């Protein structure tokens, strides 16, 4: 009658389970306990004798491009190692990052490309953000062709001659005209009016993302197919495929005032840093450092290459660059 409850299978299963867990427990005896040795690296370096004022937490917005990631990696590494700050990186789009100033969740944007509308809204009107000065880098937007074309057709690098080659750029998307590629809708472009006002037989085709734009250029260079479009530096891709700039009528102050009649090159953007008003007035040594932080396009390209091409983690890339450039780093901390 009572055999039902105790078939051999149960005991066997139970025994296997017990033996297995016991074996695990035994194996664990050789291992370190949680908190014994892992804490040393995890514990914040705050309270070290070198730091005067407490730095506290710095929230850095990480906008989605590699150059920005390079800035943030170096800044974060130095904030942590030199000043003992707690750094929180937040992966955000530009617009959302600016919103974060208002809601108090973003302290710093390290590489701002223009965005006059957002500056007006958050710096002038809401007064929740402040400009922290230039990054030392120049953002250059312009028209570019794939390198093989510049070599084969040397005069293609002047916009005046583009119509001669328009037929080469025809695709299924360009409606009988030459195809001009635009990228991420987040970036300000005046390519449509420019093409019209310069009388060029081209049509803007919106690839819709930076990834699609870069892939289009990369594939065109590989297959020696024509491609022309909007691009910018600093950008890690230029070290892989050195796109060639196409000359546009020179930029003069105010020539781009009316988007309907604009017929000149893009201005040079002095990329700048933005901080929340709260962070700027906090007295944190972190803010003083962010304010002093400046480096060149070449510096940034090195770190961006470590990340994008050599596949290093941002932390390792930053450490490597810092070790190789002690003099520059020291200058940021010299008082």
């Amino acid at each position, binding site marked *: 009658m009572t055999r039902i409850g105790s078939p051999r299978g149960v005991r066997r299963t139970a025994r296997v389970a017990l033996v297995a867990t016991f074996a695990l427990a035994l194996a664990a005896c050789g291992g370190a306990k*949680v908190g014994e040795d892992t804490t040393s690296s995890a514990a914040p370096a705050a309270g070290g004798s070198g730091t005067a004022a407490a730095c506290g937490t710095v929230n850095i917005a990480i906008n989605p491009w590699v150059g920005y990631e390079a800035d943030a990696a170096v800044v974060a590494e130095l904030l942590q190692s030199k000043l003992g700050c707690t750094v929180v990186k937040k992966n955000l789009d530009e617009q959302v990052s*600016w919103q974060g100033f208002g809601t108090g969740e973003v302290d710093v944007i390290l590489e701002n490309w223009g965005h006059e509308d957002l500056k007006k809204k958050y710096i002038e009107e809401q007064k929740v953000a402040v400009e922290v000065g230039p990054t030392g880098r120049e953002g250059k937007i312009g028209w570019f062709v794939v390198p093989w074309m510049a070599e084969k057709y040397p005069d293609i690098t002047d916009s005046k001659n583009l119509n001669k080659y328009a037929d080469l750029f025809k695709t299924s*998307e360009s409606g009988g005209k030459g195809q001009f590629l635009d990228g991420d*809708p987040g970036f300000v472009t005046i390519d449509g009016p420019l093409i019209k006002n310069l009388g060029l037989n081209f049509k803007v085709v919106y690839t819709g*993302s930076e990834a699609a734009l870069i892939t289009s250029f990369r*594939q065109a260079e590989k297959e020696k197919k024509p491609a022309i479009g909007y691009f910018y530096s600093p950008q890690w891709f230029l070290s892989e495929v050195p796109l060639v700039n196409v000359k546009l009528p020179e930029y003069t102050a105010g020539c781009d005032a009316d988007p309907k009649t604009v017929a000149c090159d893009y201005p040079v953007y002095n990329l700048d840093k933005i901080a929340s008003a709260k962070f700027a007035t906090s007295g944190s040594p972190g803010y003083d450092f962010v304010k002093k932080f400046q480096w060149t396009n070449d510096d940034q390209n090195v770190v961006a290459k470590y990340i994008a091409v050599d596949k290093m983690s941002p932390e390792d890339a930053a450490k490597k660059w810092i070790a190789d450039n002690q003099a520059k780093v020291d200058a940021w901390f010299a008082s």
Partner: protein
Amino acid sequence: MAVLEAAKTTRPPAAPPAATPTGPVWAAHRGAVVAGVIAVWVVLWALLRNRFTLTLDTASTTDLHLRINDVRDSIDAGRNSNPLFLYVFNEIRLVIDALTNAISGLIAQPAFGRPVPLLGWLGVVAVVMFVAWALGNGRVSLLAGAVFVFFGLQGLWTQAMDTLALTLAAVLVSLLIGIPLGVWAGLSDRVNRVLTPVLDFMQTMPTFVYLAPLTLFFLIGPASAVIATLIYAAPPAIRITAHGIRSVAPATVEASVALGSTPRQTLFRVLLPVARRTIVLGINQTIMAALSMVTIAALIDAPGLGQNVLKALQTLDVGTAFNAGMSIVLMAIVLDRVTTAMSERVEVARLMTPQAIARRPYLLGAGAVATLVCVYLSYTFANYAVFPTPEGTSLGYIGDDIAGAADAVKDWAQSNLTFFTQTWKDVSTAWFLDPVEHLLVESPWFVVVAVAVVLSLVIGNVRAAVTTAVCLAVVIGTGLWSDTMTTLAAVLVATVLTVLIGVLVGVWMGRSRGADRAIRPVLDAAQVMPSFVYLIPFVALFGATRFTAIVAAVVYSAPIAIKLVADGIRNVSATTVEAALSAGTSTLQMIRKVQLPMAREALVLATNQGLIYVLSMVVIGGLIGAGALGYDVVAGFRQSTYFGKGLAAGLAIVMLGVMLDRVTQAASGRTGGAKRR
């Protein structure tokens, strides 16, 4: 695994069959009428080409778009004094943040003063296996254990746990809201009528539209990510629960009432238990929908696998993105199989022998003890807390090999296939896409509206025609008519391709069990793999074009069409097939004359679902060259000045969705009615 699959398929037809035996004259000659309408359209297009087309330049905005911006700005400026923010949104945020952080501290992130989460990898694997076994069966338990260990071997343990934590939080909140609402909608027709359009809206409004505003309301953090996810993930739970309650046989309810049960007793003792299996299906669909949001939520700093995909995209690192995408696919497969096994548990339990039933408590007890030991070990010892890294050994992560293999495949394809893919793209664009687009975009708006209304009437019914008229009126109101027509052209071409593939592969799968077994996992993967992963190879193969977007949409939508057609073919009664066979029918005749006509309802349903899925890819299309509405939505997310335009574009997409859904549903209702006669 389909996100909307069950949600939509189980929705009762929107309208009763309109065509009665004494229906209008044209009902008898539908095909001829449709052909006639299109012929008239082409003539009008030729005559009035490029007039009254309501075009709006890509960089331009309308007054409406700017007004929406102003509303956004005033909300933004007043958020510190607005009582709605102070007492409602803040409270919601605090609760959801606390919930998410608790789950995350349990399995994913350092918390409670510890350098590691409470449960280490061993504990998580043990708990997952135990739960899968106790609520499902041994097979899914082993699958779950293997997959979770695999996350660690891929080098993605922490990211996978972050994703799991966020998904669990979103699913919990979704169910907490969704199941009661679903029960209510199941019991009350009025609630159901009010909820349906709201749910349509939640499921078809592109997430990009509300992602940035969400961070205004709920700040940057777990709450916003969870809410973004649940807006998309809760509707299936609501719909399927309502459907489950509704499909309980009325006789069962009447019997319960006759026996003197109170409404409350009827609900808890009769309706809910009987509908249980359907409700579990709803939970399953909600989980799948939540997982499909992983990459998009990463745009507002949601941690986890989505971050890996996005970061890899910045450097065009397809292999790394694929590795992370694979984790998402595997997690989806595990959660799908475990919840499915849970829903079958009741039946399985009924078939168990008395011995097995008596044995079960002991087995469960032993399992629980073993699990607790593992939990304790992973709480205490570093080796079981943090997944071992291959550092210091000659081994690497499996993930690196997976990434390498994916890159190799991509490189090979990009070097060897571009000639074919480019030719394919050029031919399809010139012969199919361009003609449809010219017709829609270059015709005067009133011609298109008239044609659409008449076609809705002929294919569907009066109600569908009214819906079409209203939806198109709203589209005109958004100021984005021309973009909407461009998008509609691409959506229609993509849907035709989807249905074609659905029929070809679906018939094959429906007729052959072997084919079904081999293909189904591929379909599951294609549905759950984040589309961001394959965008770059597609752009390399086809260029940044409208056709590329169509291909991406077909990859996502064909699986559901294939599955529905396969099920339809398999459900054709065996006796019919045998009868036809004995009458000497050839294979081709069998498919054309017997199986496809009998599976007609499934075909219409596959078209409906194909459309909805294609539509959900419009925004992704905007990222790879489709332009039009998809681009407008992305621009609205990326640039503050285009916020209003992006919202308007999102609304236009919703309108397209509602219109196409109602017309195809009306058509399916009609064919159903025709068959019954």
